[in-house]
């Protein structure tokens, strides 16, 4: 019985860890209802309808890492890519903390739930902190000299029931490719293949091709689940961003754990919650007052 107790408790904590690494932005992933079941909804023109609020399914681990599907999560850096990664880690503050758009592929790999609105020739993704992207699906081709942006020049098309987004013309090293400060260059080309196999699930197959920084294309896949009734909420990123304005935030993502996620392997535990045996008394490290 004792073993069962320990196993159940450990399992619950493990699930907590998995889920905490995911997002619940905009009203997202807190106490939530069941995943909808049933067939894939269709739009009037017969395509799958991706409209809805989507949260992570809990299996995209390690979260926020574009190398999650690679052996050992090891990215195939070129020499320039390795240098760009080191520069990000040692010399750049997380661009998202500066309230810059996460862009692609970071939004695909990251924590955030998002709202998706499919409206005829436009497909709109609404992310946290007021970030959005609009994907035109009207038969246009890439421009001859597109202006670089955080989400790139995105062109949508249908391949059967698969919605394909082909993107080029990204900002270069002004952004991170994922939460771990992995880089991308202005040569980045992404192909996203989105499917909705049933009412409750949204799946992505992503190819990240960046020959300046990676010796071969990176393949990444994950699934989100529908979260009916949720929507993206206002989050004014610059409202009170003293992490940056007061200079508290350091460079890079901090340590990366062996499991491919950011954070300390073994942080020192907090004092136990206040109780009769743990009184409410200030505890500071030596030298602080």
């Amino acid at each position: 019985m004792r073993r069962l107790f320990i196993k159940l408790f450990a399992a619950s904590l493990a699930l907590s860890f998995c889920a905490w690494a995911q997002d619940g932005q905009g009203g997202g992933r807190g106490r939530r209802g069941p995943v909808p079941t049933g067939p894939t909804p269709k739009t009037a023109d017969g395509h799958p309808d991706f409209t809805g609020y989507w949260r992570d399914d809990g299996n995209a681990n390690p979260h926020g890492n574009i190398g999650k599907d690679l052996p050992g999560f090891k990215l195939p850096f070129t020499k320039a890519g390795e240098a760009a990664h080191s520069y990000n880690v040692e010399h750049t503050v997380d661009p998202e903390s500066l309230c810059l758009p996460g862009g692609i592929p970071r939004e695909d790999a990251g924590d955030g739930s998002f709202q998706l609105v499919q409206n005829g020739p436009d497909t709109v993704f609404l992310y946290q902190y007021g970030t959005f992207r609009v994907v035109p699906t009207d038969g246009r081709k890439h421009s001859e000299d597109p202006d670089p942006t955080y989400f790139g020049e995105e062109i949508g098309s249908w391949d059967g029931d698969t919605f394909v987004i082909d993107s080029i013309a990204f900002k270069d090293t002004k952004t991170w490719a994922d939460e771990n400060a992995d880089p991308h260059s202005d040569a980045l080309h992404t192909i996203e293949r989105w499917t909705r196999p049933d009412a409750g699930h949204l799946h992505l197959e992503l190819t990240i091709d960046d020959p300046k920084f990676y010796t071969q294309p990176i393949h990444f896949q994950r699934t989100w689940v529908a979260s009916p009734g949720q929507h993206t909420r206002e989050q004014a990123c610059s409202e009170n961003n003293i992490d940056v304005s007061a200079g508290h935030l350091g460079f890079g993502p901090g340590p990366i754990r062996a499991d491919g996620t950011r954070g300390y392997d073994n942080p020192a535990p907090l004092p136990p919650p206040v109780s009769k045996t743990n009184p409410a008394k200030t505890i500071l490290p030596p030298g602080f007052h």
Partner: protein
Amino acid sequence: MKLKLAVFVAAAGLLVTLPAMAHHSFSAEFDGNKPVRLVGKLVKLEWTNPHSYFYIAVADDKGVVSNWGCEGGGPGALSRAGMKKGDLKIGDTIVVDGYLAKDGSHLIDARRVTLPDGRNIYGGSPGDGGPPEGAVTSKK
């Protein structure tokens, strides 16, 4: 009976899971080896994005008061964790458990906030790589 208890505890571990987005990595700003407990009177509350801040006046054993800032999740994350803006009033005594900022300033990560009514709330930004809710709070 023991089985029921085991299932209850496991279920409780799941219920307190409140993941959310993160504005930056916990470990890029805070020192995971320097846990802190602050007990003090609330002098200012900023219920803002991308983070909320609790500013508290902390008196030491000699009565000398120092001011500290405590960085919590944004209003959305705190609301989902069970804290409402109206739960706190200026002058309330609160307990904030968290980690010291790496830059040595009087700033901590408000990973756990104990309210005047005794509830302890997960105050961190879920998804930031810091200790998760299930590891730091106990629901009453």
